[in-house]
C-alpha cells in the first residue's frame, strides 16, 4: 500500500486564526494514477474492469471512469484532475477484496499514486434446496449472510450477503465469499429485491440445515475454499406481513421521480431482513414485507433527491412481529440536516514540502455522528457519507440526521493536519469587529432535525506529524489480545479538551499508525478490545466523551509512554510496550 494513503485524522481545535489563504481555483494540474491487481494465489487478472470514481464539486457528484487491466494485471488512468479517487475492481472473476479493518480510512487515491489492489480467491457455498420429501425446489433465492469475520469476531451490520437462485435440480452455488462465518437461508425476505413474482413469497426463510434463524448453523468459509452439500430442507412455513405506508415529505412540484426506500433490519442483530421501495404520491405510497418470521425488527425509510440535498428520512421504528401480520405502520419522512462551510489552507512559513501544492478538492470530509448507547441499530446505519469541497474550498455536508457530529477528514499526504473547526455563532453581525466563534473541535456539532448549519470553517495547517509503530508485550512471553485499541493522547494541558488532538486506532497485527496530527507532546496507550465487540463497527473514540477522556488521560499519564513530535516529524518504528 502506498503510505500516503494511511490517514484518518480525528478532529481539531486551536486558538487564533492567523493569516489564511484559500486555494486558488486556477490552472489545475492533471495527472495519472497507475496500479496493478495482485491476487493471493498469484494468478494474473488481465482484462478485468477497473473503475475509478471521484467525488467532485461541493456535493459528492460521482464521476467515474473505467479501464481494463493489461496482460500483467496493470492498469492506468490518465488526464485526471487533482482530486480524491476510489478504485473498484468490478469484474473480479470470483475474487474478493480482502476485508478491510473497520477503522481503516476510506481507501482513496490521488494523482501520482501507484495503487495495489489486493484480491483473494473468494469462497464458495453450494448445496441443494428440497422439500422434506426430497423433491427439488426450483427458482428459490438462497442467501449467504456473513455473520462473523475470519477471526470469529461478530459483525454488527449483517448486510454483507450474496444471493443466487436454485436451478431446476434445486442446486444453488454462491461464490465470491470473503473469509468468515456464514448462515445460509432459502427464501430470505431480504433477497427478493428484484421484485419478481415468486411462488415462495410469503413463506418464512428456512436456514441451513432446516431451521428458523435462531438455530441456523454457522459455516466457516476460508479464503478460496468450497463448502459443498450445504443442503436446506425447506419448511414451507408461512411468515407474516409487515406493511404500512410512507407519509410526509411531498416532493417539490409533485414529482414522482424518487422512490422512498424502506429497509428492514432485525433487532438488535442488525441483520438485513428486507428492502423495498414505495412510491411517493397521493395514494400509492405503501410498502410491504412478506414472509417475515416472529421477532424484533427495525424499519428505516428514506428518499433520495436529484442533488442529494433534498433527501428525506424517517425516524427509525421498532416493530415486534408476534404470531400475526403487522399492518398500518406509518413512517413519516422528514427533512435532513446539513452543514455548510469552507476549508481554509493556512499559509505557513514552515511547510514540510514547499513544492507540494494540494488542491482543496483532494480533501475529504466525513461527518461522523456520535452514537448513543441507548440508540437502535439502524440509527446511524448507512448514512455515513464522504464529501469533497469544491474548487473554492466550499463544502456542504447534507443528508444528516439529528444528533451530535464530529468532523473526520482525510487529507492529501502527511504534511497536513486539521488545526481547527469553528463556526460563527449567533446571527451574522457585520458591525462587530471580530465575530464570536464556537470551537467545534472541542464541542462537536449539534444538529436538530432538518437544521441547516452554515458558516463552519475547517482550517488545515502544514507541518503535520506522524507516528508509526508496533505493539510489543512488556513482559517476555506476554501475549497481545487479538484486537488492540491504541490511543494517541495530547500531553499538553492546553489540549485536554481538544478532540482533534486525540487519535484512536484498532490493530489486529500489532502495527499502528497515526498520521496528520498537530506537532506537540503525546502519550500513547494500548488497551485490549473485548471479544464480543462487533468487528464491523467503528467504535466511538473514547476522547469524544469527557468522562472517558479524563479516565484515558489518567491511564496514559501513569503508563508514561510519552513522545514529542516537532513540526513535520515522522517517527516510523516506535515500539509500544504493552
Amino acid at each position, binding site marked *: 500500500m502506498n503510505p500516503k494513503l494511511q490517514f484518518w485524522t480525528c478532529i481539531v481545535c486551536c486558538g487564533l486564526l492567523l493569516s489564511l489563504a484559500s486555494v486558488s*481555483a*486556477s490552472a489545475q494540474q492533471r495527472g495519472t494514477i497507475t496500479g496493478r491487481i495482485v491476487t493471493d494465489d498469484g494468478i494474473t487478472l488481465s482484462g478485468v474492469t477497473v473503475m475509478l470514481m471521484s467525488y467532485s464539486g461541493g456535493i459528492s457528484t460521482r464521476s467515474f471512469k473505467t479501464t481494463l487491466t493489461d496482460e500483467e494485471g496493470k492498469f492506468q488512468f490518465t488526464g485526471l484532475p487533482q482530486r480524491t479517487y476510489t478504485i473498484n475492481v*468490478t469484474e473480479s472473476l470470483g475474487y474478493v477484496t480482502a476485508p478491510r479493518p473497520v477503522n481503516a480510512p476510506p481507501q482513496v487515491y490521488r494523482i501520482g499514486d501507484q495503487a495495489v489492489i489486493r484480491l483473494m480467491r473468494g469462497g464458495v457455498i453450494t448445496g441443494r434446496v428440497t422439500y422434506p420429501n426430497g423433491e427439488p425446489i426450483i427458482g428459490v433465492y438462497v442467501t449467504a449472510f456473513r455473520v462473523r469475520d475470519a477471526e470469529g469476531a461478530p459483525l454488527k451490520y449483517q448486510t454483507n450477503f450474496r444471493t443466487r437462485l436454485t436451478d431446476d435440480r434445486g442446486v444453488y452455488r454462491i461464490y465470491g465469499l470473503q473469509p468468515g462465518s456464514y448462515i445460509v437461508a432459502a427464501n430470505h425476505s431480504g433477497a427478493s429485491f428484484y421484485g419478481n413474482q415468486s411462488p415462495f413469497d410469503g413463506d418464512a426463510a428456512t436456514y441451513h440445515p432446516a431451521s428458523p434463524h435462531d438455530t441456523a448453523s454457522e459455516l466457516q468459509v476460508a479464503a478460496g475454499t468450497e463448502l459443498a452439500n450445504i443442503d436446506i430442507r425447506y419448511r414451507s412455513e408461512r411468515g407474516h406481513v409487515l406493511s404500512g405506508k410512507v407519509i410526509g415529505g411531498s416532493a417539490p412540484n*409533485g414529482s414522482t421521480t424518487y422512490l422512498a426506500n424502506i429497509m428492514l433490519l432485525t433487532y438488535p442483530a442488525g441483520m438485513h431482513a428486507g428492502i423495498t421501495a414505495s412510491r411517493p*404520491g397521493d395514494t400509492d405510497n405503501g410498502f410491504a414485507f412478506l414472509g417475515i418470521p416472529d421477532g424484533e425488527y427495525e424499519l428505516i425509510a428514506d428518499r433520495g433527491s436529484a442533488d442529494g440535498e433534498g433527501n428525506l428520512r424517517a425516524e427509525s421504528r421498532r416493530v415486534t412481529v408476534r404470531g400475526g401480520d403487522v399492518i398500518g405502520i406509518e413512517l413519516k419522512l422528514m427533512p435532513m440536516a446539513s452543514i455548510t462551510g469552507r476549508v481554509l489552507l493556512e499559509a505557513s512559513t514552515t511547510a514540510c514540502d514547499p513544492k507540494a501544492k494540494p488542491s482543496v478538492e483532494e480533501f475529504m470530509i466525513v461527518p461522523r455522528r456520535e452514537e448513543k448507547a441507548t440508540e437502535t441499530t439502524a440509527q446511524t446505519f448507512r448514512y455515513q457519507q464522504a464529501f469533497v469541497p469544491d474548487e473554492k474550498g466550499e463544502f456542504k455536508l447534507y443528508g444528516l440526521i439529528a444528533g451530535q457530529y464530529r468532523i473526520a477528514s482525510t487529507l492529501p499526504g502527511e504534511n497536513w493536519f486539521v488545526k481547527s473547526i469553528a463556526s460563527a455563532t449567533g446571527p451574522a453581525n457585520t458591525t462587530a469587529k471580530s465575530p464570536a466563534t464556537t470551537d467545534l473541535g472541542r464541542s462537536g456539532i449539534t444538529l436538530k432535525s432538518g437544521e441547516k448549519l452554515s458558516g463552519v470553517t475547517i482550517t488545515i495547517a502544514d507541518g503535520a506529524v506522524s507516528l508509526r509503530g508496533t505493539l510489543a508485550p512488556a513482559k517476555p512471553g506476554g501475549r497481545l489480545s487479538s484486537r488492540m485499541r491504541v490511543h494517541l493522547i495530547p500531553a499538553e494541558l492546553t489540549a485536554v479538551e481538544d478532540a482533534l488532538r486525540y487519535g484512536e486506532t484498532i490493530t489486529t497485527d500489532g502495527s499502528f499508525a497515526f498520521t496528520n496530527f498537530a506537532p506537540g507532546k503525546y502519550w500513547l496507550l494500548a488497551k485490549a478490545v473485548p471479544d464480543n465487540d462487533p468487528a464491523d463497527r467503528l467504535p466511538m473514540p473514547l476522547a469524544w466523551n469527557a468522562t472517558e477522556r479524563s479516565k484515558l488521560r489518567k491511564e496514559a499519564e501513569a503508563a508514561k509512554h510519552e513522545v514529542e513530535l516537532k513540526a513535520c516529524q515522522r517517527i516510523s518504528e516506535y515500539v509500544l510496550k504493552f
Partner: protein
Amino acid sequence: MFKQIFTLFVVVLLTTQLGAQTPLKEGTATVAGVVTLKGEPARNVLVVLQAAEKYQQNQTPRVKTDEAGRFRFERVKAGRYTLGAVAPGYSAPSENMYGAQGKSITVAEGETLDTLEIQLRFGAVITGRVTDSRGNAIVGHGLELFRMNEHEKPERVWLGPNGMFSATDDRGIYRVFGLPEGRYLVSLGFEQRPNSITMTTVRVLYPKTYYPNATTIADAKIVKVSEGQEVTGIDISIGAARKNYDVAGRLTYSENGQPAAGVEIGYGVVASDGKRIGPTANNDFKTDANGEFRLQNILPGKYVAFADPELGDNWYSEPVRFEIGEADVEGLELKLHRSGTISGVAVIEGTADPIVLAKLTALRLNAFVSGSNLIAPTYRNKITPAANGSFTAKGIAPGRAVFSLAYNEALSAFTILRVERDGVPQSEGIEIGAGEQISGVRVVIGYGKGVIRGQVQVVGGVIPNTIQIRVYVRQPGGRMSSLNSATVDVRGQFRIENLPSGEYELVLSPSYRSEEAPSGFEEWKRLLEDFKQRVTVGEGETPVTIPLDLSRKGGNQ
C-alpha cells in the same frame, strides 16, 4: 463501508414491490380459469394478474391453483392485465421461465372471463461453460438466448433482470432452465447495435459471441431442445473484452472566446444516415474552470459532442463530430451561442371547474427541440406556467420545438390538445431560429377522464403473434403522439384512458417484438396506414369497434 452504501443505493433503485396478498380494489369483473400440465390440472401453481401499465404496482393480485388446477380472481377492476403462471422450471406459451410475460387480457366492468387456460409444459435445460481464449472462466455474466420463431427469426428470451437467471458462476458454468422446446441461439457478450449509444459503467464488454465461437448469427450453431430435455456441453469461447476511450476538449463562448465553466457536456451517436443525432448520453461531465472537459468510457464509433447548458440559461451549442478509434481523442473545441426563447400562455380547455383550473400551475411543460439537420437535441423541462398561465421557455436552440407535459401520475388526466402560434395550430412543432425570441404561443391543455374501450374485429385472416398493433388517439389532423395510445391484446381489445371529452381520430400502427422486422411487416404498415376512425368521447366509457379486413392485405400494392 462506502462501497456498501453505494451498492445498496443501486439495489434500491431496482427494487420493485412484491405483491401483498390483498384483495383487489373494488371492481366487478371476474378472471378465472385453469392451469394444466400435459392436459392434467396443475395444482398449487402461482397465478398473477398484473395490471399492464402500472409501473411498480404495490399490490399485484396473486392466487394459487386449487386441487383441480383452478384459479379465480374476483372484484377485478376494468383495465388491461397480463395473466401469467409463475412456475419456475416449467414453460408456458409466450412466457419465459419465470413468467415475465403472460397473456395480455382486457377486462371490462361486470365481465366474467372464466374459461382461460394456461398450459404449462416441462421446461428444457441448456447448460455449458463460458471461457475466454486462454480457457479462463467468464464469471458472473448473463447469457442471451434467442429462440427461433416460425419465420426462422431469432426472438430474444427474457432471462431475468441483467440476465440473472442465466449468469455464469465462478467456474464459468451456466444453466438455463424452464425453456420451451425449440431451437435456440446461445450467446454472451455485447453488441453495439447501429444507432444506439452505450453508457458503460461497470460492465466488461465482451464481443458478442454465439455458441460455439461465432461472432455473427450466420455462423452460430443452433441448439435444439425438446420438451423437458437437458442439453449439456453448450460451451462458448469468447474473445477479449473491448476497451473504451476518452474524449477531451474545451468549451468557449462564441462571442468572446472566453472559457465556459461548469457546463454539462453530452454526446450522441451520429445516425446511420450521417445527418441526424441518434441517442444521446450525458454522464454528468462538466467543464472545469478553464472550460475543459473530458468525456469518459466511450466505445469506438462516430459521435457528436455538445454542451447542455443549465435550464434557464440562454445558450446552446452546435454539435461537433468526433470518431473514437483505438485511442483517446483530444482537443475537441465546442462553442456556446446565444439561444432563443419561446413564451406564451398555457390554458386548460373544456372545463370550468375551479379545482381543475387551479392545477395549471402544478403542470410542468417540456420543450424538446430537434431538427432535420445535425443539431444538438435540447430538452427544456419543468417549464412552470404562472397563475395566469404565462410561461417562458429559455435556452431553445434553433430547430423545431415540440411541447409535452411532464409525466405525473396524479395529473394524468391532463393532456396537451394542441399548440398554437398567433392562433395557428403548430402540429409539427414551432420553428425557431438562432437567438429568436418567439412570443404569442398558446399551449392548449385538455382535462378529462374519458375512456375508449375498443375491439378490433378482424375479418379475412388472423394477426400473427409477431405483429403487435397499437392504437393511437389524436385530435383530427393532430400529431400522432400527442395523446394516448394502447396495444391491442390477443382478444383484439384495447383501452385508452384519461381523455378529455371531444372529437378524436383513431389511427393504427404495427410494431414487432423481434429484433428485426418480421417478413411482411411493410405490408402491415401499408394496410394500417390508411386507417382512420372518428370517435366522440364523453365522460364515461365509449365503446368502439374497429373493423380490420385482412383480405385487403397485399391487395393494394
